[in-house]
């Protein structure tokens, strides 16, 4: 058998249940891989060696007693640093939260713990989940496991790199405009952003509350389904969590009868030739598997990025006003209250986050509200309607996940607009509130390229089924 850290969650589950391996062995394999590779990758901000091993031992005991807690019992996972775990540091990769200790478990963490998952550590990210490269971490960038000179994508770059490098069996990320799917694309993982409302946001540090969702980053589509099953559900602590029917995987052996739409508006200029070619090959493969490929019209799709870069900063400016050094985090004491705020937020919040706070404050300020926020929310309605009518004719919409392969560290960091264009294909699903997934087009050791699927509300099962069918045909 290969090293245990390279197992998928489903494989590990089968081996554990058969009594052929223990959770301690898998956890030790992950920790050993972290010790050997993470000094170079920097996927983790903190690793909880002793606690992880203790949890693994408890899982092994449960397995022996026949009192296993669920599919994730004894499975080592990594958690993005913006999801609260009681008693653990949680910083959102920001200096302003450097000393902060979480006071309670996020709902997703309660659910993972209730299933007996082993939490290995917290993963690096762009500060407060703002960025597409993980270079905006106040603790230094994460490197792409396929090429250390390139970014892993972002903002969930630590989680995506940790999964790709087999430092864990799976990970949680969060996605506001593509922060699960774009790093999954750059690292060759499966990345799933569930339907808005599918997973509770309670205990996720809010970035843009109307777009944020927590989701899995995994090695296979089947694993993403296992994690989503554990996370999904109505939560009375999150008013926007939906009372939808339970998530149930619906795997398929072929794609006969499925209609996949290619939105014309998305296939314009600006896509790297490599990416276009790889995604077109993947489309051919999906056709061979039985899917019907149809050109569809998706009006206003190319406006989603502009809508996002108005609404998101507005919500950011409101959500991040709580980080003022008064009740928690770092305070930079000055002679009076106003200067204390200025110094604390000026020195301890990074450049990109400050930029978005100011942009949002401007768009919401007197005289500009109608021109920016109201206008963007109206265009959002047009975009939602366009997605809804396109998805009446097809089951899913397909595009590349990102316009390029992983770019070089430093390449876009001083050009905010170029960095924002990274979200071009992913942001539509957040603006429309729909589920979306990135799966790797190829596994040939070259830089990964992701294929992006957007589905109907609460139909994550179809996205996962297509990705798994494709995986298994390779």
């Amino acid at each position, binding site marked *: 058998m290969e090293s245990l850290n390279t197992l998928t969650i489903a494989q590990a589950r089968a081996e554990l249940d058969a009594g052929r391996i223990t959770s301690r062995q898998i956890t030790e394999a992950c920790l050993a891989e972290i010790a050997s590779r993470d000094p170079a990758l920097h996927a983790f901000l903190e690793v909880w060696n002793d606690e992880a091993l203790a949890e693994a031992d408890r899982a092994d005991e449960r397995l022996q007693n026949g009192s296993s807690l669920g599919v994730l019992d004894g499975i080592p996972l990594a958690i993005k640093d913006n999801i609260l775990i009681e008693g653990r540091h949680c910083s959102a990769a920001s200096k302003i939260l450097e000393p902060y200790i979480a006071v309670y478990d996020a709902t997703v963490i309660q659910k993972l713990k209730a299933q007996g998952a082993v939490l290995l550590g917290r993963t690096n990210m762009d500060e407060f989940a703002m960025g597409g490269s993980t270079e905006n971490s106040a603790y230094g960038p994460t490197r792409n496991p396929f090429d250390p000179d390139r970014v892993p994508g972002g903002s969930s770059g630590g989680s995506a790199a940790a999964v790709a490098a087999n430092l864990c069996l799976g990970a949680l990320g969060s996605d506001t405009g593509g922060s699960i799917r774009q790093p999954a694309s750059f690292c060759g993982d499966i990345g799933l952003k569930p339907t808005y409302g599918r997973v509770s946001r309670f205990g996720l540090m809010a970035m843009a509350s109307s777009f944020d969702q927590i989701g899995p980053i995994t090695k296979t589509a089947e694993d993403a389904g296992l994690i989503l099953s554990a996370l999904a559900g109505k939560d009375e602590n999150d008013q926007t969590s939906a009372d939808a029917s339970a998530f149930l995987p619906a795997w398929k052996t072929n794609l006969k009868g499925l209609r996949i739409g290619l939105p014309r508006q998305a296939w314009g200029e600006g896509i790297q030739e490599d990416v276009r070619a790889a995604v077109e090959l993947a489309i051919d493969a999906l056709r061979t598997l039985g899917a019907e490929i149809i050109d569809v019209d998706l009006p206003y799709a190319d406006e989603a990025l*502009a809508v996002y870069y108005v609404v998101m900063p507005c919500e950011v400016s409101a959500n991040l*006003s709580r980080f003022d050094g*008064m009740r928690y985090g770092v305070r930079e004491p000055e002679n009076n*209250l106003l200067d204390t705020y200025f110094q604390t937020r000026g020195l301890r919040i990074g450049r990109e986050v400050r*930029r978005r706070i100011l942009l949002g404050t401007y768009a919401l300020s007197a005289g500009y509200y109608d021109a920016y926020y109201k206008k963007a929310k109206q265009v959002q309605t047009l975009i939602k309607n366009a997605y809804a009518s396109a998805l009446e004719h097809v089951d899913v919409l397909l595009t590349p996940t990102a316009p390029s392969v992983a770019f070089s560290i430093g390449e876009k960091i001083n050009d905010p607009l170029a960095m924002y264009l990274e979200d071009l294909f992913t942001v539509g699903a957040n603006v429309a509130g729909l589920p979306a997934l990135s799966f790797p087009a190829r596994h040939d050791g070259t830089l990964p390229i992701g294929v992006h699927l957007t589905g109907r509300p609460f139909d994550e099962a179809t996205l996962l089924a297509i990705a798994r069918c494709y995986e298994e045909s390779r």
Partner: protein
Amino acid sequence: MSLTKEELQSIANLARIGLSEEEADRLRHELDGILGYVDRLQLIDTTGIPEASSIPVQADEFRVDEVNDCGDAARALIIDNFPASQSNMLKAPAVFEKPKS
């Protein structure tokens, strides 16, 4: 639309973010670029179009609004997180200052 120096300073004051001269100049340039991009929305006719709702249709219930005790462990963590404290009380700069005579 172009952001004046005064506008940027006023926004930074509202957002309680201290800016150096140099950063203010760079930010004006960067924000102009982003605002220039999002200005494309002005070309779209939205007459009679309602603003999008952010709440999923399946989520329209409120839970009971009641005070819960967080428990001693959580209380201790909250107090440990205070940037400054005195006898387990949060210490913060005064909102109103004594006039200096």
